[in-house]
């Protein structure tokens, strides 16, 4: 199959989008590199404090008029954005592959998930309706109006450059707030293209802003008195030690989604034929760089025959995965995002060996890359056996294509192992038994639970949950919870004298 055409053809310096204008930053610029080809595809500014302040000021100034714009009128702009995203679906998807490295199927999946959030937010005239009680006492009525708050900051990670800001932004603006988005500086092109389409859709100046950069921009958001809340997705250390406490200290609402260490629990009664592709997607899809990825494969039962048959099938399939540039339609796994991330993953593989786990499949060796690309960011699927939950590879987030295989005597023990993890993002069970599924779903501590699903990605009309060290906050992104997050309940009690 042919290599799909790259949408980014020349290296440009990316601009910020502030108050409806494309503004050149005064900050230094750094290269944005395609991890498959190692070629520079853009230059992104590390914006200054003055620039984040200007964006917040523009958003604050736009808020009164935007709030007065009716929910129906706001939803019409979102409908227009949805149409533009559909029209530009393929370009937007290929940009993600070009700047992130994921396969084209994965990028299209990301685009679809992002658009679905815009679609759900289009229903804002119904979604943000309040409620009313007549005669709470004789002649006295009481009702609730969800009201927007002002300016919100949205901070996105590198692993889903297009979709993750859309878990929040459509709901924020649909409810009448204004947003300042800070994409990851490693993958800024997707949000830049999205802002161009938001501009074309007709959002008034200042409602939708994008400021590129790093810590200065994040700190500028966290400290800014005019930012009412932050929606953050990133690593657990940043979510737990920076975003969550700083928002608490400055009185901001916060959604802080962190990392994960997801267990995929395999019961001996599982449908092996369907389970293997699901596990490949879970552990090696997106090169393992997602908070919903499987990390630990926990095989239940003491039947060595089942274990060996299952692991033979897993290993055979994993070793045949086609690796290469994601714009090649045949490729099943792209590179990890950059050399630093690859080095970090290699460090975990070394630590696994030192702590006594055994490599069943070594992704460091003999990486067969389809096409003529440098090996720099590529890594093959790696499978450890004899791993344990207390090893670094069994307990810490690796964020790469590494599977750590463990065993449990029975389902009860498997659930105990899952629940001992400090993370609780997306554990899953693979079984043909309704009884096992029910027991797992009821007892496992996990924000999202999969039953025969390897990537437990909630649809846009459900919250993207998370517990323990995977989530800090109360309300989640997506759907009704996002609407609640971006509005305050104004309660009115009325009596006519």
């Amino acid at each position, binding site marked *: *199959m042919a290599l799909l055409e790259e949408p980014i053809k020349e290296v440009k310096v990316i601009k910020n989008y502030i108050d409806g204008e494309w503004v050149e930053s005064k900050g230094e610029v750094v290269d944005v590199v395609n991890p498959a080809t190692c070629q520079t595809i853009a230059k992104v500014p590390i914006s200054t404090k003055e620039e984040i302040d200007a964006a917040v000021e523009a958003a604050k100034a736009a808020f009164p008029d935007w709030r007065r714009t009716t929910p129906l009128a706001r939803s019409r702009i979102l409908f227009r954005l949805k149409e533009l995203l559909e029209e530009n679906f393929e370009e937007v998807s290929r940009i993600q592959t070009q700047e992130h490295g994921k396969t084209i199927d994965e990028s299209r999946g990301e685009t679809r*998930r992002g658009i679905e959030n815009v679609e759900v937010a289009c229903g804002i005239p119904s979604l943000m309706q309040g409620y009313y009680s007549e005669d709470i006492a004789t002649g006295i009525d009481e009702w609730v109006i969800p009201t927007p708050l002002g300016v919100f900051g949205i901070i996105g990670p590198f692993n889903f450059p297009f979709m993750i800001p859309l878990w929040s932004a459509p709901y924020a603006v649909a409810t009448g707030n204004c947003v300042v988005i800070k994409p990851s500086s490693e993958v800024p092109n997707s949000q830049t293209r999205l802002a161009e389409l938001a501009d074309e859709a007709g959002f008034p100046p200042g409602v939708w802003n994008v400021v590129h950069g790093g810590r200065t921009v994040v700190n500028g958001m966290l400290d800014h008195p005019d930012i009412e809340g932050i929606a953050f997705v990133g690593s657990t250390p940043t979510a737990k030690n920076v975003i969550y406490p700083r928002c608490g200290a400055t009185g901001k609402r916060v959604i802080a989604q962190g990392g994960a260490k997801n267990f995929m629990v395999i019961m001996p009664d599982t449908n092996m034929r369907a389970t*293997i*592709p699901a596990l490949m997607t879970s552990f090696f*899809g997106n090169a393992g760089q997602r908070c919903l990825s499987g990390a630990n494969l926990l095989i239940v039962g003491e039947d060595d025959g089942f274990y060996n048959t299952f692991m033979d099938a897993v290993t055979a399939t994993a070793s045949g995965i086609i690796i290469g540039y994601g714009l090649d339609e*045949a490729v099943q796994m792209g590179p990890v995002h950059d050399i630093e991330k690859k080095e970090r993953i290699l460090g975990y593989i070394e630590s696994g060996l030192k702590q006594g786990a055994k490599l069943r499949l070594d992704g460091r060796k003999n990486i067969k890359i389809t096409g003529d690309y440098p090996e720099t960011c590529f890594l093959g699927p790696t499978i450890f056996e004899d791993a344990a939950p207390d090893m670094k590879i069994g307990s810490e987030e690796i964020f790469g294509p590494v599977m750590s295989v463990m065993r449990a005597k029975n389902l009860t023990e498997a659930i105990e192992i899952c629940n001992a993890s400090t993370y609780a993002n997306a554990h899953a069970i693979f079984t043909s038994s309704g009884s096992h599924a029910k027991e797992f779903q009821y007892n496992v501590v996990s924000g999202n639970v999969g039953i025969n699903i390897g990537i437990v990605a909630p649809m846009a009309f459900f919250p993207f949950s998370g517990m323990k060290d995977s989530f800090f906050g109360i309300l989640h992104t997506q759907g009704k919870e996002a609407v609640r997050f971006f509005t305050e309940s104004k309660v009115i009690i009325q009596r006519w004298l």
Partner: protein
Amino acid sequence: MKLHTASETISFAKKLENESAKFYKDLSQKYGKEEDAFLSFGEENRKNIAQTERAYYGVITDAIEGCFAFDVETDEYTFETELADKANYADALSRAIEIEEKIIKFYSDAAEQSSSLMADVPRAFKMIAKKRRNREEKLRALLEK
């Protein structure tokens, strides 16, 4: 050549539809008495592509196994669309039936491989296989006429 990803499988389905549409267009020009039937097959192929793409782009998400859902050996489904100079109408219809058999097998196998993994895509494949079975029957009826 083996296909594993949804993207390349959808592209392959599109290729089969386009190649067979061209074959029917040629037949319509060569055999005017069944021009309408052959042209309608080509039009149906266009709708099949739209139906497949709608299913794929509508359900593709990171939650389903887009890169691991298929194991399609393309050699099993490729067909020859060029007819020999001395081929007659019956030869052309026989070739059309052969083409339809290959395409039906492709859609049926791909649907089977991806059932429970690719949501609406296998359903769309099954529906197209059914439509093409009907077409095959029409072609057989023309051959027997």
